[in-house]
């Protein structure tokens, strides 16, 4: 491995190195120092990716390269990991989650995510996405004191293992049909098309699990509810963007096939409709956000199925925006939770007034998720529906927009709890003081939501470079 190679994959090395350092040095350091080391490393990986000049330079490494897509994805992943780490330090202390393995696992996840973003080979790609899942199995069940965390981890593991097997089989079929593992646009010959399309069919099923598209969504609410809030933040952003990126990278491998249009259409339709309708009925905020996540992935699928450059571009932008919105939402939940998590919606009554900063962030996240300008959520939805209409999916786009209008109701319900309801009976427990790390993380997420919403040109430029 030459120096050029090392520089190109520096984010991967930083994440892996920091993860090992945290594990090895962990027992000898204070919890706070470990957290800060992890935060700095995770942020450094992203900053490196942003400033690295030699995008697309040839490297001698097998199966890895730093492409325009890497330059877009790695900062997103790194931001998700950094904010998760910032949010979880105090959260974990309040909840009695001990040990440096938490930080190390988050960094390992970041490592796998960065590998995924740099993958140029089918096997590396598969290994990366499964390593991401593997790390998340651990993170979800890391709250050893609580049964629901373990239960969530087990559910996620079982579902994930099935999905992994399906994806693996799909990939092997695609390999059998095309005869290469390189993601360089080796298109399948006509003779083997049935094999390749069978492979794609399986990949779509596997992706449906990972993105939790209806009808493969049933695990999501339980896992989100059971997982610690910062982990749910990371899970709902990192793993989703990873799955979408996985799909996009595979598309570079073989042309979008007409056969996957119908399944994707149905998955998108089902997710948008059922996700949003089910979210209406939820009384627990994390379950509500889980169904909201299902619905949002339905929007992603809508853009994916257009099979157009604009569609893919919309998917990536939405992925980034969704990351900011969900980190803000789950981050505020994490910060407002004490030793017990604030799950029920009624536990948020009046918090907009008693905890103005975090209440405002949570409200902002809700308005963004509902797609109200000038937040980035509006721009993301605008791009998705624009790409869909441009790609000829007008009917599904209109259905999507109608469901988006319905979704405003349950997002507003949270805002109503925060600002407009009087507590019935005993007022909810006053939240503890927000810590500087939490405030920093929430501020970053909020700034991202507003900045991308008002001035998206810079991120759109990176995005255009990513898909070149």
């Amino acid at each position: 491995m030459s120096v050029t190679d090392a520089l190109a994959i520096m984010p991967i090395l930083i994440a892996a190195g920091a993860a090992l350092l945290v594990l090895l040095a962990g027992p000898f350091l204070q919890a706070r120092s470990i957290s800060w080391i992890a935060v700095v490393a995770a942020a450094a990986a992203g900053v490196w990716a942003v400033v690295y000049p030699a995008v697309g330079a040839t490297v001698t490494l097998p199966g890895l390269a730093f492409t325009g897509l890497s330059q877009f994805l790695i900062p997103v992943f790194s931001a998700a990991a950094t904010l998760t780490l910032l949010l979880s330090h105090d959260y974990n202390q309040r909840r009695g989650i001990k040990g440096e393995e938490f930080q190390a696992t988050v960094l390992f996840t970041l490592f796998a995510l960065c590998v995924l973003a740099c993958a140029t080979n089918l096997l590396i790609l598969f290994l990366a996405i499964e390593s991401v899942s593997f790390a998340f199995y651990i993170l979800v069940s890391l709250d050893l004191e609580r049964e629901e965390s373990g239960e969530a981890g087990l559910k996620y593991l079982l579902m994930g293992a099935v999905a992994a097997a399906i994806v693996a089989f799909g990939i092997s079929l695609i390999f059998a049909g095309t005869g290469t593992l390189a993601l360089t646009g080796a298109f399948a010959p006509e003779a083997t098309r049935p094999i390749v399309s069978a492979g794609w069919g399986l990949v779509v099923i596997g992706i449906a699990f990972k993105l939790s598209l209806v009808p493969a969504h049933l695990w999501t609410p339980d896992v989100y509810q059971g997982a610690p809030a910062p982990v749910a933040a990371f899970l709902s952003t990192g793993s989703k963007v990873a799955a979408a990126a996985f799909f996009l990278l595979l598309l570079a491998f073989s042309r979008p096939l007409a056969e996957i249009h119908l399944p994707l259409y149905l998955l998108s339709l089902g997710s948008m409709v059922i996700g949003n309708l089910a979210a209406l009925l939820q009384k627990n905020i994390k379950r509500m956000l889980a169904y909201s996540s299902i619905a949002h992935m339905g929007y992603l699928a809508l853009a994916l199925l257009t099979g157009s450059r604009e569609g893919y571009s919309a998917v990536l932008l939405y992925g980034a925006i969704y990351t900011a919105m969900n980190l803000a939402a789950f981050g505020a939940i994490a910060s407002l939770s004490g030793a017990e998590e604030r799950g029920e919606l009624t536990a948020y009554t009046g918090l907009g007034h008693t905890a103005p900063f975090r209440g405002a962030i949570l409200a902002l996240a809700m308005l963004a998720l509902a797609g109200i300008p000038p937040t980035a959520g509006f721009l993301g939805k605008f791009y998705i529906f624009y790409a869909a209409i441009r790609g000829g999916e007008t009917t599904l786009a209109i259905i999507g927009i109608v469901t988006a209008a319905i979704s405003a109701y349950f997002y507003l319900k949270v805002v109503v709890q925060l600002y407009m309801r009087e507590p019935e009976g005993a007022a909810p427990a006053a939240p503890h003081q927000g810590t500087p790390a939490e405030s920093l993380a929430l501020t970053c997420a909020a700034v991202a939501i507003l900045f991308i919403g008002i001035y998206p040109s810079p991120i759109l430029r990176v995005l255009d470079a990513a898909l070149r």
Partner: protein
Amino acid sequence: MPTDFPILTLLVFLPLAGVLALFAVRKSDELVRMGALVVTLAELALSVWACGAAGAGAGAAGAPAGFFLYQDAQWIERFGIRYTLGMDGISLVMVLLTSFITVIAVGVSWRGIKERVPLYYALLLAMESGIQGVFLGLDLFLFYLFWEAMLIPMFFLIGIWGHGRRVYSAVKFFLYTFFGSLLMLVAIISLYLRHGAQTGTYTFSLFELIHTTVPYGTAIWLFAAFLFAFAIKFPLFPLHTWLPDAHTDAPTAGSVILASLLLKTGAYGLIRFGFPLFPEAARACAPLIYTVSVIGIVWGAWIAFAQRDMKRLVAYSSVSHMGFVALGIAAWSPVALSGAVIQMVNHGVTTGALFALVGMLDERTHSREIATYGGIWGKVPALSFFFLLFCMASAGVPGLNNFVGEFIVLMGTFKVAPGAAAGAFVGVVLTLIYTVRLVQEVLFGKEKKPLELADLSVREGGVLAVLGVAAIYLGVHPAPVLDIIKVPIALLTGVK
């Protein structure tokens, strides 16, 4: 004033910048109130200053015909979205109305709002920014952004400081308007794509999109989406059901802003975007708009007659009065359209004043029931005088403002659609009946309960006097306003 001075940007964002100033003094409620008043007065001064540019008469550089102030900059290149603000006569009138009514809104909230004062005034100012943006944005994306963004402050104003079923009303208001807007977004995007496919330039600029060739069958659908969004805001029958709830449960200033300004954004949208973008489809839909506006005029008046709650009564009278605006727009002749714009201003002044009055009575007795009052003329002469004045204005008594608007609208409409004008006239008669009943029961008649009533304070008197002067001025001398809007209306209707 240097020619490149960004006065329009300042008009839109000054109130929002004022929010930061309020944040700095948030510890003292009194300072917050003063700050809000200063900011809204500065905004009013700025709007009046903009009149000077209108008087100069010259078109701004690079601006479309009729626009004397114009600003255009690259914003989101990727989609051809530009930051385009422009002011013609119609925008100017609306901007003036907005600045004026927001000062009034600050005035009527002075004593009524005692809780969470900084947040309240911050939302009020944010609201003003959003509304000014709607009246000035000429890029459809920018317009849409302001159009939706202004919902948020109003949602909070109703939900936090409202009365009764405030949360229900706030959510209902939000969802109704949000739903309508999203369908308009689809229409905007498809118009944008069609224009891009035809010309190769992808743009949201209104004056480019106007030249898009849209087949009639498609245009009808696109216009329907625009009409739906604007008709909800208007509100046109049968999409008006959010309005009585929202108005009734909103705090006084919220009702004032809703009635005087938010409803106008719907009418303005139809004038600026709906009709010019799809002229044929709009003409084809005109009979439909006539029908629903006449139903709205008559039905609103009829229902207002049955109300026991004064705020609800004024709310339904809004449905009725806004019907005239819709009627004038649908007729789309220079006379009718001028009438519609004048009526927008008049309704803003009169209904705003009536909501303020009901709010003042409510602050004194905590009751908005007509049955509570009776014979208050002798007790609170100043308040009663203004009550009578604005009720007469609302009833369309000649010499006061509403008469001018209704008369011009009916005159213009009669030439194009005599049947609709005749139907609307029935509404005028009904309006007279319910306002006379209101005046008779509240001001005169017997005292039903002994009430402890104080007459107007200086602040309240000032607010009402300013509105009263506006009502009388517009009633006897509407020519300046008609002059300002003459050029843009001639350009819009294509009649010189």
